[in-house]
């Protein structure tokens, strides 16, 4: 249905950024919004952890580390 209207951090290339639109998971949304990762913010993928699975991102200039599952819950503008 609406599947292709979003992508996630997993789809970003290193150093690519995109605008966050929404979250796909309520619990993660609660955690991430309280840390300041908000819809409308620009999310940049900086690098992956040594074994993949963890994502180093920048949101409005602030750095975060997220797990794959957490990173995939942020829905980004295509």
């Amino acid at each position: 249905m609406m599947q292709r209207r979003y992508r996630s951090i997993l789809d970003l290339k290193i150093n690519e950024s995109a605008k966050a639109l929404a979250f796909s998971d309520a619990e993660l949304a609660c955690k991430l919004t309280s840390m300041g990762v908000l819809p409308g913010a620009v999310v940049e993928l900086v690098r992956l952890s040594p074994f993949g699975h963890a994502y180093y991102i920048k949101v409005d200039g602030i750095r975060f580390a997220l797990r794959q599952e957490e990173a995939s819950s942020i829905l980004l503008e295509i």
Partner: protein
Amino acid sequence: MMDVDARILKIALIGNPNSGKSTVFNQLTGLRQKTGNFPGITVDLKEGSMRFSDGREAMLIDFPGTYSLYPTSSDEKLVSTVLANPADKFFPDAIVYVADVTNLEKHLLLLTQLLDLGMPIMMALNMSDTAASMGIKINASKIAEALDIPVVLVSGRRGDNISKLKQDIEKLAKNTDFKPRRPVYKMSALEKQVTEAVCLNLNVENPYRALQLAHHHKWFPFLHPNEKAVLATIVQTKDFQSLRAQVDETLDRFDRFTPIVQDTIQKPPTFPNTPTDRIDAVLTHKFAGPLIFFAVMMLVFQAIFDWSVYPMDWIESGFSGLSEMLQNNLPAHWTTELLTDGIIAGLSGIMIFVPQIALLFLLITILEEVGYMARVVFLFDKTMRRFGMNGRSVVALIGGSACAVPAIMSSRTIGNWNERLITVMVTPFISCSARIPVYLVLIGLAVPKVKVFGFLGAQSLVFAAMYALGVVAALLSGWAMKRWLHTRERSFLAIELPVYRMPFWKNVWLTVWEKVSAFAIGAGKVILLVSIALWALARFGPGDAIATARAEASIKADSMQLGPVGTEDFIKQSELEASWAGQMGKTIEPAIRPLGYDWKIGIALLTSFAAREVFTGTLAVLYNMGSAEGDINDRSENEAKTTLREKMKRETFLDTGQPVYSLATALSLLVFFALAMQCMSTLAVVRRETGGWKWPAFQFVFMTGLAYLYAWLVYVAFSSPLPPS
């Protein structure tokens, strides 16, 4: 009615992680602080005292850093719990909110939640120095006006405006006619219905506090079961979706305060490649990152072993000098023995660890202060999850190499209960500094001083192997526990990677001071008591057993023609055998004989269950009790140690005449000490963190059983088959 002024005012320091809250706390209180150990609360809060201009003291409470009143870890849950319960003994009279002014747009969420709780509050805008250097312009009075609270621009690191902050805190705390202001957040129609019902049924005045009760009724520990039932019914009948409401509220709050920040703070355009980005390109690099981490760890351990030798030697020789002086100047009486062999020996056993613990915490605190630990969490999250833990567990495991007690407490930042539990359970496997002296004595005894491959000392290799054994045991146990404990609870990584900063040395010193004094006083009490008890058990025996043993031994010694020193030794040995300690050792000998231990090791093992480091002290007491005093005291420290080793080497089993300290026995003991749970302080802290005796009991049985099994295997593997008799 009690005079309000006579009461001690409680002031809470609250803020997000990385807001520099601890720096402000340390500036306000200095050394007048302690980590409270509060029964009934599973989290330690730091409290400090602050003196007002009229001489009155106020208590400043440093709460753990948190982003929101909607928590995901037990650290964060504490803040919500205390603030939702006016009957809590830490419920503050006023709040000082600390925010990082360089990131204010992210730091106001929690402030607006606190505002809605209707408590007296003010804000310290921290890091004014960094803001100035970044060219950020701040209109503090406009922020104060917009939020309708007192605001002070401070620099915790440079101490700027701290005295102004103190004055404002005093004014805030003493203001008796405080009127709650209009709430920041406008509740939805559903939230209004829910809070009205809660206010009515539970007699709550503040609507936002009522909303908190509705959100958190399942886990708030202070709620009565009846209250929980009432709240559950309200939430159910109104179909109140907690998570959904939390997100909506958070977004609404951001919408309300973001314009205020944009209005009052001017930031120059940011440059893409800051120093933090350049450092992280290396430190969090796919390949270089882990390599650098292991290099850093090697450096840390190198520092601990090489550098702390000198102060340890000074402390040791200082205490033995004191002991010698007392022996020479006090009358020969059992009270003198109690002083020198019991109390001073015990004190020296505690103080000897202080350099290592201080150095280890110094280095770990520096790594934490500069912001490196958050990167370690990022690097190893996936690896640790394989073993049932979390990236944050690495911090606890590293701390475990100093002392498991504070390391276990640092696991509170882990939100998932199972991951936290596994971290708590396996951290004591990591070789702590208390095991070092045991390793040193046993390795010196069993492993020859030869070089492997021409440059690596065999002794250092075995030493490193003991550490590796601890790490492997911790990881494999974690892996096994993960299989066993199934959970559906969510686990989070989501962590902020702070900007790299130079360590703020006042924070570093205060942390090291706090950890060291906690060890010296907390663990020290136990060690001292054990040494005194041990001395008494070895000095006295049932009835006149000792006198009888002495009489018999002196007759035997005459017939054996041992000479004066030998006779004295033999008599003391026999007395020791007859003492209470000797009896106890003999009783447990059958149980430990399969591992290759005799009754003397048995006594040492029993005493080391109070604290590992007691082991070498016990052996020293047991083997030294026989020697003529001048024999040891005339020699240098190293020679005295050699004497202990020589004596241990000469020991034989009473029945078979085989030497006690064969390679097999020494290796078996090493393995036992690496794996066994022998620390009362650790068990006590595990009980506190897990809320009962179940987990510490399991940990004790599991670790000690594992230690027994592997020690036995090692003994069997290394002992040569007995010659036919």
